[in-house]
């Protein structure tokens, strides 16, 4: 668990990242997190898993492979999710001016480390 927390802390340390967490993709529950105050981890987990599930069904219907990275962009920030092994999502919430490129790389690295 310590390794996982260190991994999440590395994602959370990126400029503009308000928090990172591991989420169960099938039931939307929090496995581990590293969040700033004011971020509702349970809501993030539930919404991210639900959105990723819908997106996965859409890509399947469109004959595309399952998403490897999902990025919801909104006016005041973003939600990023990367599927990892064993039905787990690496999820991050960011501000609008976050370093998304670096966050993307760290999340992919975190997902690989979980395999």
């Amino acid at each position, binding site marked *: 668990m310590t390794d996982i927390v260190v991994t999440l802390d590395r994602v959370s340390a990126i400029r503009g990242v308000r928090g990172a967490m591991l989420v169960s993709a099938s039931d939307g529950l929090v496995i581990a997190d590293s969040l700033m105050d004011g971020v*509702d981890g349970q*809501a*993030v987990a539930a*919404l*991210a898993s*639900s*959105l990723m599930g*819908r*997106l996965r*069904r*859409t*890509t399947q*219907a*469109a*004959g*595309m*492979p*399952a*998403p*490897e*990275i*999902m*990025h*919801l*962009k*909104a*006016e*005041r*920030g*973003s*939600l990023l999710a990367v599927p990892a092994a064993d039905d787990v999502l690496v999820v991050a*919430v960011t501000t609008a001016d976050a370093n998304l490129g670096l966050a993307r790389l760290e999340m992919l690295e975190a997902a690989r480390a979980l395999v």
Partner: protein
Amino acid sequence: MTAELAADPGSLVFLELGETLRRRGQPEVALKVAAAGTARYPSLADAHDLLARIYSDLGDGEAAFDSWMDALQNDPAHLGAHKGLGFLYFRSGDLPRALRHLELAQSGSDDAGLARAAARVRAAMMEGGASGSSAPASNAVGQDLPFSLDDSVVSQPAEASGPEDELFLGFDGARDGLLLLDQNGLRLGGGLRDSASRDVSDAAAAHLSGVSREAARTARLLELGAWLSVAAECGTGNLHLSAPSDDTVLLTTRDASVPAARLAVIAERAGAAARRWLERVA
């Protein structure tokens, strides 16, 4: 588009405006629009590509060459730049380099016209055609061209036969990589095909309205404001979902050779086209 650009000089609508002016036979005006846009977005390969096509129309092959090289510096796989350089090298008689760029363009596109062009260059080489190695000059060689620049740079739908066909007229992927749907998951225009070329428009549309609702709900509950887009990288392909208007959803897909950030630019242009189309048909 002119009004839109005047209201927001930072808008990427200059790409579409410049292209429209070029096609209308107003290259000088198009050049001003493209030059201003390129100055504002010096790392946007599409802007350099537009500038190059206008220079080519004006007969300035050297400036076109430089602009396409600038496009490749920013995006080494840029399809339009490789097509354009293939065109220029062919025109200058440097068939090996023409073929190299056409083959690089082919690696990122299944455009049948490109394959025919490359085949014709190969045939010309077999027949002992010119093979100089200098950089291409303007209108240097008077031999027949294997394809027209317009056909090579922007794939055109065969013919616009109705309002729906006009929706993404002139856009790459107008019928297989751009899909506009309403809030109920019903297709308004465009189309989507899978890797086996099967039409999957309706199946994808049925799911997409749910994704957009979920995206809106997620952004609202996480206090992120209104949702702007959902992008996904899916191994062999990327997709981008946006809302051109309050009650429509636009899906833009491309293969993985088109990076997610560039796909967002394409989606923004397609979204602007969708908004204009919706105003016309309303």
